[in-house]
């Protein structure tokens, strides 16, 4: 093992971290909005809304992400004249936006199921109690349903975020130079697969470790009711001297 080379490789690959995190957080952020919409459609009880959402989830969870990326990046090129006419070509021309779009659509399908699970886990008696107190509509959701659902869904959502960080590596296939893209380039230049792999793997592990810790911290912060009450310090009474 050549540690000087590995240190150089580490510095090179580190420059890909901002793009990796950028892609992951763009996708997770935009995907969360879409996922919420899909989850509400699934739970609306209207077949007109439920079926399209169900079909969406089935299609995006049943096909590989790489196929979705290719379909958007290369596939939409087939409709270039139409897209240019609509002024959308500037968007689909960029591999960055294609990657963000594909990752967003993909994560929305998985996240909508997580959110639906969270929303459905809210005990009905809590909702009834809130209604009895006169809450309804948005107030009910904001004060009662969402806080409980978020707590339920957060662990699963955390692993979805980790999966997204890993999935950004596929953007390297459409020329995005994030960590995996730089690693592949470095391997093909130096033919030192093991060293580069160890360094790149370490970078991903560090990123995922930090994200897991942040999510655990949020979980802890959101569940004060599960924490042990702070022990009351036995006060030392001044001895009567």
């Amino acid at each position, binding site marked *: 093992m050549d540690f000087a080379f590995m240190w150089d490789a580490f510095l090179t690959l580190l420059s890909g971290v901002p793009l990796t995190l950028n892609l992951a957080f763009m996708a997770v952020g935009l995907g969360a909005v879409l996922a919420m919409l899909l989850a509400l459609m699934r739970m609306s009880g209207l077949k007109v809304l439920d079926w399209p959402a169900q079909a969406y989830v*089935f*299609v995006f969870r*049943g*096909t*590989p*992400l*790489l*196929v*979705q990326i*290719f*379909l958007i990046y*290369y*596939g*939409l*090129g*087939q*409709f270039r004249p139409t897209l240019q006419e609509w002024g959308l070509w500037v968007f689909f021309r960029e591999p960055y936006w294609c990657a963000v779009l594909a990752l967003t659509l993909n994560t929305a399908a998985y996240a909508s199921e997580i959110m639906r699970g969270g929303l459905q886990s809210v005990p009905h008696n809590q909702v009834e109690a809130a209604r009895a107190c006169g809450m309804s509509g948005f107030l009910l959701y904001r004060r009662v349903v969402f806080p409980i659902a978020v707590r339920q869904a957060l662990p699963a959502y955390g692993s979805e975020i*980790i999966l997204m960080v*890993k*999935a*950004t*590596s*596929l953007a*390297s*296939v459409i020329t995005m130079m994030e960590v*995996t893209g730089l*690693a*592949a380039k470095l*391997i*093909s230049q130096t*033919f*030192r*697969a*093991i060293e580069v*792999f160890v360094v*790149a*793997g370490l970078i*991903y*592990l560090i990123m*995922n*470790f930090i994200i897991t810790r942040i999510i655990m911290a949020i979980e802890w912060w959101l569940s004060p009711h599960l924490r042990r009450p702070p022990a009351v310090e036995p006060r030392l009474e001044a001895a009567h001297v």
Partner: protein
Amino acid sequence: MQQLSYFELVGFGPNGWGWALLTAAGMTIAVATCGFLAGSVVGTLVAWGKIGGNVVIRGLADGYTTVLRGIPDLLVIYLFYFGGSAALGAIGSLFGADGFIGVPAFATGAMAIGIVSGAYQAEVFRGAYQVVSRGEIEAARSVGMHRWLMFRRIIAPQVLRYAIPGLGNTWQLVLKESALISVTGLVELLRQSHIAAGSTRRPFDFYLTAAVLYLLITWVSTYLFQRAETHSMRGMRRAS
């Protein structure tokens, strides 16, 4: 040249890519199956290490599952693809053959999938083992079964039964992961679509067809795993 209709393009006629796509879909299933089976072997060994190993083995097994689940699959595929040929080249130079020796893409892909899915399957097997009731294992020991016989008669059948849903999920992951093998040049479904798209300049049509074929494969395998689950649970009483 007249523009071919979609069905001529993906059909089985003289200008159609139908057979090529179907063969490639067969390749996808083959590489995914080999990878999945390799992963089952790895997963069983790792799960064994996690359950019955001493501190060192348990640490190694835990490290393995943590690392492999924390890094992108594409990176593992690159490692096997580039690292494998570097290793073969080094072995080859010992015997006087110099130059680049490529690893067969199929073997690379199946090994990479096996190593990654092994980490997931290890967790599935470990979870399933914990559901097997302690009493049954004690009973097996009390009638004098040795470890291997106990594994074969008592543990393996029950672990497999409880593991089927988890294995189904892993299989879906493996199937989707097999699309990544296309970067190594193995002509599976995505690679074949890429080739066809390049030579006909109809990328959307071919990637859409690939997506539909993947969907078909996942759909059929979901059905088969459900059948397997009901079959394996036929003697069990359900709490419902």
